[in-house]
Every structure is written in structure tokens, then in C-alpha cells.
């Protein structure tokens, strides 16, 4: 017997001219084994097709559906409904501009990502086969490359809230470090030059909201700490 579940969802359509508002929904829905995204889809399919949100893989790997559920940044597709206090309040990720409903403008976030030059730089002639990398060297990348760019961390970071245009935020810094940590990359100095900046990197005060919310269990604060210690080492 499906239970009745209650939701409060942030709604905003700039075209309507109306201000943002919270809309209540009640649906018959069996929460067992289901995720927040399942409920959002059920609401859209049966109650209100105008409810807008992004989704793609529905299994926590594409990073489309970062939202704020009961005050916490999560991926809707991997967040179990069971155990959430009702009405379950769903809002867009904080601090970014709202395009519509749960859809935020990610451009700022992507710009910071592009700024760290998130690609391998190696100017040696390419060998015939693979560039060798030991399992230990490769292990340095674990916990870095798995980032799905969902934005949950960056938009939960108070330093980003204060300086969204200048502080790169945990996701971009994690990716910055992913290439510094790669034994095949040759641009460490240039990367550190770029990051050595009172805002881009040093606005991180180790609050660790990023670690707390990362749906992939990654640790951007640790990566940022490693960048900082490399900068310190370099100075002497």
C-alpha cells in the first residue's frame, strides 16, 4: 500500500513574471528503495508536468541532478526517500542563478573548471605505446578523477558564496590538483603559479562542507591542502 508523501518544491519561471514560491505536492508513493529523483519524476508525470529539473543517468555518475534536499546538497537520483523528514523540501543548489525551478545556471561553475586547465600537459614526443605509470603513481589520482562536476560541493561552500567570481571553489580546485598529481603531467609550475592567488585558492578556509556533501565521497579539502603545501615547499 503506497504511502502518501508530501513535498515542498521551489518553483520559479521567469517568463511568468511571478516571484519564486514553494509549491506543495502530495502523492501516493511507495518510498521503499526509491530515490528523490523517482518522486520528482512521478510528480512531473502524474501531477504537474511543468516542474522542471535536470536528470540523465539516474545512477549517480553524470552529475546532472544536484539539488538541495531538506537543506543538504545531494544528487536526487541516489538520495533515498526513506528517512527524509516530510514535507521533503527540494530547492535548487544555492548561490547560482536559478534558470527555472530546480535548474541553476552552472556557467560560473564551469568557467572555474575550465580555468584550471583541466587537461594533461605533456610536451614530450608521444611514445609508440602507453606512457608508463606505476600503480603507486596512478593511486595518487584516486579520489580526484572520479569527480562528476555536479556542483554539490562548490555550492555548499561559504567561501564560494562570498566570492563566487574569484574563488575557484572545491570542484575546480580538486580538478586542478588531479593534474598536478598526475605523474605524466609537466605543467605543475604553471598550475601552481595560477593557483597562487589570495582568492582562487586561498579563500578556502578548510570549512569542509565540500567533504560533507560530496556524493562520490571525494575530499576536495585534502586536495586543496596538498596544493597549499606544494606552494609552501616551492617557496623555500
Amino acid at each position, binding site marked *: 500500500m503506497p504511502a502518501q508523501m508530501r513535498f515542498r518544491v521551489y518553483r520559479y*519561471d*521567469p*517568463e*511568468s513574471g*511571478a516571484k519564486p514560491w514553494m*509549491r506543495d505536492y502530495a502523492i501516493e508513493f511507495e518510498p521503499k*528503495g526509491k530515490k528523490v529523483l523517482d518522486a520528482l519524476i512521478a510528480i*512531473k*508525470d*502524474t*501531477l*504537474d*508536468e*511543468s516542474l*522542471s*529539473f*535536470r*536528470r*540523465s*543517468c*539516474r*545512477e*549517480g*555518475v*553524470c*552529475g*546532472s541532478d544536484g539539488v538541495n534536499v531538506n537543506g543538504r546538497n545531494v544528487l536526487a537520483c*541516489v538520495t533515498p526517500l526513506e528517512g527524509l523528514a516530510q514535507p521533503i523540501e527540494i530547492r535548487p543548489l544555492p548561490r547560482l542563478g536559478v*534558470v*527555472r*525551478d530546480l*535548474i541553476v545556471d*552552472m556557467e560560473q561553475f*564551469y568557467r572555474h573548471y*575550465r580555468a584550471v*586547465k*583541466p*587537461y*594533461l600537459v*605533456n610536451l614530450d614526443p*608521444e611514445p*609508440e*605505446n*602507453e*606512457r*608508463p*605509470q*606505476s*600503480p603507486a*603513481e*596512478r593511486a595518487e*589520482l584516486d579520489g580526484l*578523477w*572520479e569527480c*562528476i*562536476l555536479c556542483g554539490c560541493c562548490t555550492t555548499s561552500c561559504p567561501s564560494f558564496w562570498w566570492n563566487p567570481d574569484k574563488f575557484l571553489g572545491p570542484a575546480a580546485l580538486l580538478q586542478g590538483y588531479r*593534474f598536478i598529481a*598526475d605523474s*605524466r*603531467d609537466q605543467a605543475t609550475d604553471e598550475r601552481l603559479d595560477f593557483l597562487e592567488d589570495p582568492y582562487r585558492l586561498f579563500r578556502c578556509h578548510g570549512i569542509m562542507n565540500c567533504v560533507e556533501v560530496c556524493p562520490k565521497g571525494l575530499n576536495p579539502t585534502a586536495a586543496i591542502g596538498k596544493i597549499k603545501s606544494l606552494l609552501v615547499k616551492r617557496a623555500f
Partner: protein
Amino acid sequence: MSAVKTSIPKRTFDAVIVGGGGAGLRAALQLAQANFKVALISKVFPTRSHTVSAQGGITAALANVSDDNWHWHMYDTVKGSDYLGDQDAIEFMCRNAAAAVYELEHMGLPFSRLDNGKIYQRPFGGQSQNYGGEQAIRTCAAADRTGHALLHTLYQRNIAARTQFFDEFFALDLIRDQDGYVLGVTALEIETGEPWLFEARATLLATGGACRIFRHSTNAHINTGDGLGMVLRAGLPLEDMEFWQFHPTGIPEIGSLITEGVRGEGGYLINKDGERFMQRYAPNAQDLASRDVVSRAIAQELLAGRGCGEHGDFVYLKIDHIGADKIKERLPGIRELSMQFAGVDPCVAPMPVTPTAHYMMGGIPSNMHGQVVTPVRTGPEEAVPGLYAVGECACVSVHGANRLGGNSLLDLVVFGRAAGIHMIETLRENPIARPLPEDAVETSLARLARWDKRKPERKTERKPEHEPQKTGTETVAGLRAEMQQIMQAHCGVYRNEALLKAGLEKLSAVEARLPDATLSDHSKMFNTARLEALELENLLPIARATLVSALARTESRGAHSREDHPERDDEHWLRHSLYFRERDQLDYKPVRLKPLTVKTFQPKERTY
């Protein structure tokens, strides 16, 4: 240069690529690095594309672990395809596989490594040494997140190459002139709801698969076969649409994929009696037989009442015996998925799995240069000028009737690159754009206008904004759910004439109701309801193509298993199907049995 004024904003590029998954990104990179002006249109930010979900790896005979060479890979692929694959294209893919993987490594892809520093490889289904001998170890992996690693790496290289991205633009229709040249596409800017015209001398479709025609599928929500819909609307055919791969190990109900790499790392399937039943179905390869074989074996077990659980509708995949450390190192993503969606930690208990729609072997007919080909007076495979297709949306055909695991990511990068190279030639040979037809955007604008239509009676009784808006009698979500139910019930692992016929009748009824569907959301801003309607317009004809093609093929080959025609019939059916939307017409073309340089692998009985 075009004298025609269109009513919508226009952008002009050398090349336009539709789709930001692995295939589209690889092709874009080739063009951007050659300094062509290339636009990549994607309905999602590129790293949200379904390539990201690929887990187990990319197959190439690097011989890092077992003795290997591309000839054996080619043999396995031909055999895996149940001899429906085109052997010239298969040779091209397998011959170029190692170079493609090394190229990805040079780009920065974080492959897992062996102790000697080389790329890690794991065994996958259908792989052999010496043309059918011992198991080969051929699939290159980045843990069990190889697709994620590949997609992000290719996106990153495109950032470096300054490819121009149009993220969250939904392609609507191909623009084709009277002589059949493709001159670009129309696309909807999702955020603003504005239609755009993208004019280009070369257009590449890389729009991925369409398993969302089924109720249960491993595919992302976005896999709605948009490129296939565009091609059908342009009057071009689809090839081999009866062949859909049911992956043996999807999580029941949820659909999420459990990689074949689990069995590659030593996992095996058991039924409710705890029996390793694959030993009965594939005495040699056992759990690493081809996917079609394993899926049928599971289906047989379920039919025989040896399924697990309350309803006996799944079997178990056991891996805990390899140890928690190995699982956490090599299969971390699977462990996460299984815990999240099946509530099972594979380190301590077996995972429930069941055959689940996974991959479309058919698609837009293309050749190994990525050119879209169609029968014209002079021959069965004439290139459509200006149009290319690669990746899952295309049918080269390297996968034939059944794809081998690890060959999909390979297909993306090998043919993405090949298409990019051929497009560069085309652009150099055709420096001047042909004029756009007068009615270039009419079809698309009419489609958009159709979904602006409101139910007249609803206007008067429109409820206040805070109450649920009831739509017309038919809804997009309702029709989509019915289509998915029909395909699931009538076009699964096993098919027969009566089942397919009934399915086609039901689907026709659903299609007939589509004109009655209306939307209640008419906002221009990021209107996902409208997007889903446009996607349904792509899905429905794909479902139809599937049923019609499956009904006609009276044999069993690869993933197409007809209970009423259980044998493969090379005499009549060693040929590709071509489905045209107009009057559900079917045509056929021969399989290309002649490879580029090596000897033909003659069709023979396929056992594992």
C-alpha cells in the same frame, strides 16, 4: 553563402556535430585540432552524456596481460556479431584499437595500471586467443568507471582545442536540399526555447542509443534516439533495428548496469539452487560467454522456475569470494551502485541481476568513414552527401547481431576519429556552402507549433497556478509509459510472430493517439515537458522500426531470438535490414563478408 532569409537566428560553421558523448567529442577534436570551425550541439552538458555510464572498459589487443593480437579480436567480434557484422569495418576497428587506446592514454585518461606500469586489462565476454581458444584478457580499464574517464578526458581535450560548445541545445531536424545534400540542422536552445539554424557543410550525428523505448533499461533518461528520429523524418532508413542487446546483469526493476567486468574479475551467476548454471549453457566460456548467450541462459533459468527471490524473477551474481580489497580496488563503482540500488554490498553477498535492455546494435546505416549510406538507384550503400553518423546511433556495422563488451567505447573513438578525418576531406573538397532550401526550417517550426497547441476547452477552465494542472486526455508521459510497456512485453529476449504482431497493433494504437496529446506547460524557459514530447516523437518511430524489422526476420541470430524460428538461417538472412518510415517499408542489403586485407571469417556454428 545563402540568399535565403530564415525566420530564425542562424549560425554558420564548417561542421556541426550533434551529441557530446564519446563519439561526438572524438570527432569534434579531430576537426578542432585541424582548425576547422566546429560547433558541438548537445542537449545536455557533455559530461552528462551516457558514455559516462560505461563501466568495464575498452577492448584492444595490447597483449599487456595475455598473448594477443588484433586478428583474434577481429575473429571474436565477427563471431560475437553472429556473422552479421561487416568484416571490413570490423577489421578497421580491431586493427586501429591499440592505437586508439594509446592515444587516449596520451590524452591523459587515467587507466588503471599493472605492476610494470602498463595499462591494466581484464577478461571480458566472448574474448579468446587463437581464434576460439583460451580466454583472452583484452579489455583496458580505469577501475570500473572507464566511460567516465574516457568522456571527461575527451571533453577536457576539446576544452584545450577550443571546440565551440552549444550545451543544452536540442537538435530538431536535418536540413536537406532537393539534391539530398545535408546542410546542417535546426536546434532548440533549451534555456530560452528559441529555435536556431546551424548551417554547416558537414553534419555529424552522434546522438547515442535509444533503449528508452523499453520500460527497463540500463540507459540514461536522455537516450531517446534523437538522431534516429531525425534520419527517419528526412526519409532515410535505419539498419538492423531488430537487434537490441539485453545485458545479462542489470539491477532488477531499477535497470542500472552491473558490468561484465564483475564476471571478468572472477564473479559468476547462480540460480536459486546455488548452481553455477552457465556451465550447462556454455561449457567452455561459462560466465564469460557472449551477452546474448548469457541473457538467454538467465531467461531459461527464470522460465524453468529456478529464479531467485519472491517472484523468481532474477538470479544472483556472486563476487565476494575474490575478497573485499580487490572489489574495492577494481569494482568500486559497482559496489556503490549495488549498495545504493540493490541494498547489497557485493563484498559480503551476491547481487540480484536480470537481463536488461542495454544497447542498440542497429541504427543509422553508415560506413567506416562515418558517412551515412542509403540505397540509391546505383547501389545499396550510396553516401548521403554532407551527413555522417558515429557511435551507438550509427550502424557501421561492427556489432552485427550482438555486441561484445568493451567494443562500444572502442567504436566511439575509432569511428569518431575516422569520421572527423573524412569530414576534413569533405570540407576541403567543398569549400563553398550550397544554398539553403527555402523551407529549411518549416518542418521544425511546425513541430514546435504543434506542441504549443492547447486544448481549447481547457483554456476556459484553467485552474489557478497553485493547483495541479490537468492536461488533455492524452499525456506525453502516459503515451511514453505505454510504449515502454509494449516494447518490454512484446520485444524482449525471446520473440515470436504472434507476440510481435500484437505488439505492433498496440503500438499503432498508441501512435494514433499522439496527435491528441497536449502540453500544459507552454513556458519558453527550459521547458522540459516540451523536450520530452519532442523526444517521444523520436522514440515512437524507433519502437515501430524495431517491431517491424523483428517481425520480418524469421530466424534467430545474436540478440534476436525467435521462438518460432530458433535456428540461424544464413541462406536467407545473412543480410542487413533497412527500415523506411514510409509505409513501414523494409529493404535488405548484403553483409560485407570481405575484410580489408585478411581472409573472410566464414559463418559457422556459434558456441561458447
